[in-house]
């Protein structure tokens, strides 16, 4: 078993008492194999995030969910840097749900999202490491009877002025008796670990099949359930007959829950076969008639009417009314599924006075609260354990706690430990999509060819309205996640008006990797490109002029342009496009190089990406996240669309909802711009620029402007006719 792969051991810590007021209280240890190993030796627990064992092991307890973004490595690196331990001895352990592990900035919730893990935990984890280091140094100094300020910690060892050495493990018992410093001092600016491409601690378990995802959870006496769901959003069961389903071998129970009819069986396949045998009549409800073409018409109409003002500089409508050369542009992007490789699932073991939930969640306290409402238990009676997540992208931070709630309901109705699994089709058709957006912009240029006025109406569902977060996140009717990336554009436009319409309909919507930026960057960066061409200027230089007061945007733009060979000739049949966008505290510019294949489809050959995410932890993780964001964004730019007809989602699996595959993946170069600014996010900021970079490259290549995603051969053909 490799180090760091604790999640393979059903270790899930049962922390009852945590550490407070400088007192080391009882620390319940993970069960499983660790008990016989070093866990019982984890004697030094200076705070909620760190355990040091007599065997010199350093275990960092991570309060963020690992969904690919590398938090099980980057957060331990923050602790280890200040602790001055031996990185080779560092392990990770997912935290339980407890107030100590709530988000450091987002209020009293445990959540992984908003590309915030490193940014929000930097200070707290650095201090956790520094406090432990000071205690270890003090313990050693006391043993040697020397002044602690003359001793130093290095690579897991405290060294005295005379060169005597004591390991952290040897000091752990003594250190545990010392008071926890209230204001530990951070090391000097010189970093040993931060900024180095330390290997991911979770990699070994992920290449040998031992990493446990939610779908892999197994407990004695457990049944596996699948749920027959209504064909339309908001549909309900009118009546059903489960006689044949119940007779199917292995089927143990058929129960009605809010989400539909659940079939629980000894294994997944039996449950699925049982589900096929259900006879259900659905009451389809009020959303049975919705279709995306009809919504599109409704949105188009709304975009001709005044919306709520999200930003107003100068007087764009008046300036535009006087202009003779207005540019009018409409952009549309579809609903998108997160399509995590691991379909949604959740394990629940419900007892009369307790409940165990084990799943891959980004939203532990919210999901636990939902479970408490369903079970009537107090949240503290519910143990919520986080497994590895087979992709998150926002889907596993569900404002409606859908996949957890349904599993709790099934467990309650069946009375046995249950793992509910969604098939791919269940997963793709059950909603919580990136909203469909319709953007209408009118713009005009000044005499020098730069934007004088920009009047932009955004139409699409709010992902926050109607959720518990509405009061905190929707201000005067404006859901900032609908307009972010447009309302806060850094471009210098004297007359700028951004308006918002937030129509409601029955389609559940949610944050999807990069959230509002996933559509606003496409609009802003595509139209900027158009305006540059209209002004007869180079799109790169045009942006430089407009971003003159924004050095970080400028620097990434310049880096991407230089590294991509911007301005140098390309082989025949290739085009180059550029885009730059700020999101989640980071700045990213991308240059895409494209051609058109025989079928009229876009082939992206190369993407050069420059990122400034402030001070960095692990450069390889940053590169990996940029690569990941580009491929994720490219799937949306080229293929992704969830559409509805008669209330029914028309896609169900990867044949109708394609993703970028190996052969379509471009060569990607990532350049990290050195920066001493506050740390920014990396999980999401790589996504927004790729769609406009590709659209701009297509324009450079063909003179065709595509303002509709995905950029399918049909969409390109339609745009060519215009």
């Amino acid at each position, binding site marked *: 078993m490799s180090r760091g792969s604790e999640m393979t051991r059903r270790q899930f810590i049962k922390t009852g008492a945590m550490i407070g007021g400088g007192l080391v209280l009882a620390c319940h240890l993970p069960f499983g194999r660790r008990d016989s190993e070093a866990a019982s030796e984890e004697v030094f627990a200076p705070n909620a995030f760190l355990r040091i064992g007599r065997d010199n092991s350093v275990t960092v307890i991570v309060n963020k969910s*690992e969904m*690919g*973004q*590398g938090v099980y490595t980057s957060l331990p690196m923050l602790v280890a840097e200040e602790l001055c331990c031996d990185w080779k001895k560092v392990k990770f352990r997912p935290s339980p749900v407890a107030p100590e592990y709530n988000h450091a900035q987002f209020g009293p919730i445990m959540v992984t999202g908003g590309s915030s893990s490193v940014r929000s935990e930097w200070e707290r984890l650095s201090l956790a490491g520094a406090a432990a280091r000071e205690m270890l140094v003090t313990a050693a100094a006391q043993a040697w009877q020397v002044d602690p300020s003359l001793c130093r910690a290095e690579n897991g060892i405290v060294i005295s002025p005379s060169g005597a050495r004591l390991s952290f493990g040897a000091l752990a018992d003594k250190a545990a008796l010392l008071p926890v410093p209230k204001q530990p001092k951070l090391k000097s600016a010189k970093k040993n670990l931060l900024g180095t*491409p330390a*290997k*991911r601690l*979770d*990699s070994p*378990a*992920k*290449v*040998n*099949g*031992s*990493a*446990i*995802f939610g*779908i*892999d959870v*197994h407990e004695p006496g457990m049944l*596996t359930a699948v749920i027959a769901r209504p064909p339309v959003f908001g549909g309900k069961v009118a009546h059903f007959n489960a006689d044949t389903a119940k007779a199917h*071998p292995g089927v143990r129970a058929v129960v009605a829950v809010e989400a539909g009819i659940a079939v629980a069986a*000894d*294994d*997944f*396949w*039996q449950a699925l076969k049982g589900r096929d045998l259900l006879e259900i009549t659905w009451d389809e409800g009020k959303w049975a008639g919705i279709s995306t073409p009809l919504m599109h018409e409704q949105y188009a109409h709304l975009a001709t009417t005044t919306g709520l003002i999200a930003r107003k500089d100068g007087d764009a409508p008046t300036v535009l009314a006087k202009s003779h050369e207005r540019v009018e542009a409409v952009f549309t992007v579809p609903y998108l599924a997160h399509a*995590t*490789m*691991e*379909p949604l699932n959740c394990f629940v073991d419900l007892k009369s006075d307790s409940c165990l939930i084990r799943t891959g969640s980004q939203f532990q306290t919210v999901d636990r609260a939902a479970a408490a409402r369903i079970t009537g238990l107090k949240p503290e009676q519910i143990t919520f354990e986080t497994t*590895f*997540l*087979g*992709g*998150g*992208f926002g889907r596993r931070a569900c404002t409606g706690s859908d996949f957890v709630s349904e599993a709790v309901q099934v467990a309650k109705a069946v009375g046995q430990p249950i793992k509910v*699994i969604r*098939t*791919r089709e269940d997963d793709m058709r059950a909603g919580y999509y990136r909203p469909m957006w319709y953007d209408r912009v009118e713009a005009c240029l000044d005499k020098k060819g730069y934007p004088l006025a920009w009047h932009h109406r955004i139409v699409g569902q709010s992902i926050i309205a109607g959720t518990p977060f509405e009061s905190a996140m929707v201000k005067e009717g404006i859901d900032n996640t609908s307009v972010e990336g447009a309302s806060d554009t850094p471009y210098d436009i004297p007359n700028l008006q951004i308006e918002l319409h937030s129509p409601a309909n029955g389609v559940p919507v949610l944050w999807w990797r990069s959230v509002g930026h996933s559509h606003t960057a496409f609009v802003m960066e595509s139209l900027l490109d158009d305006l540059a061409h209209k002004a007869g200027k180079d799109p790169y230089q045009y942006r430089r002029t407009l971003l003159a007061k924004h050095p970080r945007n400028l620097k990434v733009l310049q880096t991407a342009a230089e590294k991509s060979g911007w301005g140098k000739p390309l082989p025949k049949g290739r085009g180059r496009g550029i885009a730059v966008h700020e999101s989640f505290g980071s700045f990213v510019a991308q240059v895409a190089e494209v051609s058109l294949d025989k079928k009229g489809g876009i082939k992206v050959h190369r993407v050069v990406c420059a990122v400034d995410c402030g001070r960095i932890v692990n450069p*390889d993780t940053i590169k*990996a996240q940029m*690569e*990941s*964001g*580009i*491929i*994720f964004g490219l799937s949306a730019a080229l293929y992704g669309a969830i559409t509805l007809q008669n209330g029914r989602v028309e896609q169900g*699996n*990867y*044949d109708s909802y394609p*993703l*970028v*595959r*190996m*052969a379509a*993946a471009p*060569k*990607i170069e990532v350049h990290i711009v050195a920066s001493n600014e506050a740390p920014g996010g990396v999980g999401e900021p790589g996504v927004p620029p790729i769609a406009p970079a590709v659209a701009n490259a297509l324009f450079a290549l063909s003179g065709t402007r595509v303002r509709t995603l995905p950029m399918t051969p049909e969409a390109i053909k339609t745009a060519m006719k215009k």
Partner: protein
Amino acid sequence: MMITLRVNGTKLQADVGMDTPLLWVLRDHLRLTGTKFGCGAGLCGACTVLIDGKPHRSCITPVKDVQGKSITTIEGIPENHPLIQAWLAEEVSQCGYCQPGQIISAVALLAQTPKPNDTDIDRAMTGNLCRCGTYGRIRRAIHVASANKTSKRGKQP
């Protein structure tokens, strides 16, 4: 019905319906959960296993078709396999969910084509989706493993 399967060199028994896909026999009965469920339709490759050395989508392979055949899952790939080592060296994994299937497809590729070019890799790996977009690193890891295999004569499972 009790069936006997040869998985990773060991004979194992499971009591399942004959139409049960191999995937669910591996996962739910033999508790070999490294092989993943992604689509149930042979579209994503997360469930890829070797059957007599050839890659197959276990989610659409009825267990009755593999009795007496040799099945290799990710758990049967030795830790020192050049591909496992290359996957670690290149830091391929992100969420990690698709990687067992990716590695199994790559094992089959190298068995067939020890020195694959990029076109060979495209062809062999196109059935394996990765939502985290690790394709560039997968490609690099296959090239690295191929070079190491040739020089060190790494053992084939």
